[in-house]
């Protein structure tokens, strides 16, 4: 029994994670309560991180957990609590009439592309050690990612720092209290 488990560790982990990913995604669409949906999304993120580890992308897996699960989801939950999402009036959540059409279209698209994707399975996978090496020197996944990031992708890296600045600026501009805006809000209601 144990031997079988050890021999099949990769498929077991993959399928477990894959089921969690899809279940979490379905949960995001399904749940009425946004907080439940958020927790469902959290499960998806963690499962995806597990998949990354399986793909020899250890650094990205860690970033996924720290940034997505630890940052973005916390932000979501904070905002939901800030706006008291549960006390908002329960409103009609779905556009019922669109659901069958959406599902059929989505399914069709998926089937078409999946048919083409199977061709890839016959290509050989490269040696995973290549993901920890740069120019022949073995150094570990994080260092390899770092080398390529700061050498070849320096420009996008710097521009992304501006993106983050704008995000911060934008969040402040949109989120700050404006005394006159509250008066306008009173009139609007």
């Amino acid at each position, binding site marked *: 029994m144990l031997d079988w488990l050890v021999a099949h560790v*990769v498929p077991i982990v993959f399928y477990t994670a*894959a089921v969690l990913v*899809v279940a979490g*995604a*379905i949960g*995001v*669409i399904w749940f009425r309560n946004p907080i439940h949906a*958020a927790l469902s*999304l959290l499960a*998806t993120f963690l499962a995806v991180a597990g*998949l990354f580890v399986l*793909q*020899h*992308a250890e*650094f*990205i897996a860690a*970033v996924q957990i720290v*940034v997505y699960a630890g*940052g*973005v989801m916390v932000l*979501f939950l904070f*905002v*939901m609590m800030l*706006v008291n999402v549960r006390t*908002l*009036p329960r*409103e*009609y*959540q*779905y*556009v019922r009439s669109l*659901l069958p059409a959406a*599902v059929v279209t*989505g399914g069709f698209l998926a089937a078409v*592309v999946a048919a083409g*994707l199977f061709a890839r*399975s016959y290509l050989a*996978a490269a040696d995973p050690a*290549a*993901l920890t090496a740069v120019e022949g020197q073995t150094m570990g*996944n994080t260092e*390899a*990612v770092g080398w*390529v*990031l700061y050498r070849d992708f320096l420009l*996008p*890296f710097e521009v*992304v720092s501006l993106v*983050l600045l704008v*995000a*911060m600026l*934008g*969040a402040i501009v*949109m*989120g700050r209290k404006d005394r006159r*805006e*509250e008066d*306008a*809000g009173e009139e609007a*209601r």
Partner: protein
Amino acid sequence: MITITHYLVLSLVLFTLGVVGMVIRRNFITLLMCVELIINAATINFIAFSRQAGDVTGQVFAVFLITIAAAEAAIGLGIIVALVRLKQTVQLDQANVMRG
């Protein structure tokens, strides 16, 4: 045997769920979460292709994807906060003052 195709099919399912979710849900917060699903699907693709080719480039781009997705989420949430303050709703239909 788990091949790259398994990952690609999984990400396709995720992508489809994200897009379908955006079309049928009216709640702005849920919409944002579906956007995150779509970007995660793309990230899975990049990582999987990176693994198959033995090239770290895909992983490096994944860093950018995650960062930009987080920035987008921040702004989206800011817009939500502003919207709720003014209109007491996160339903896009209710916010429809202008002809759709």
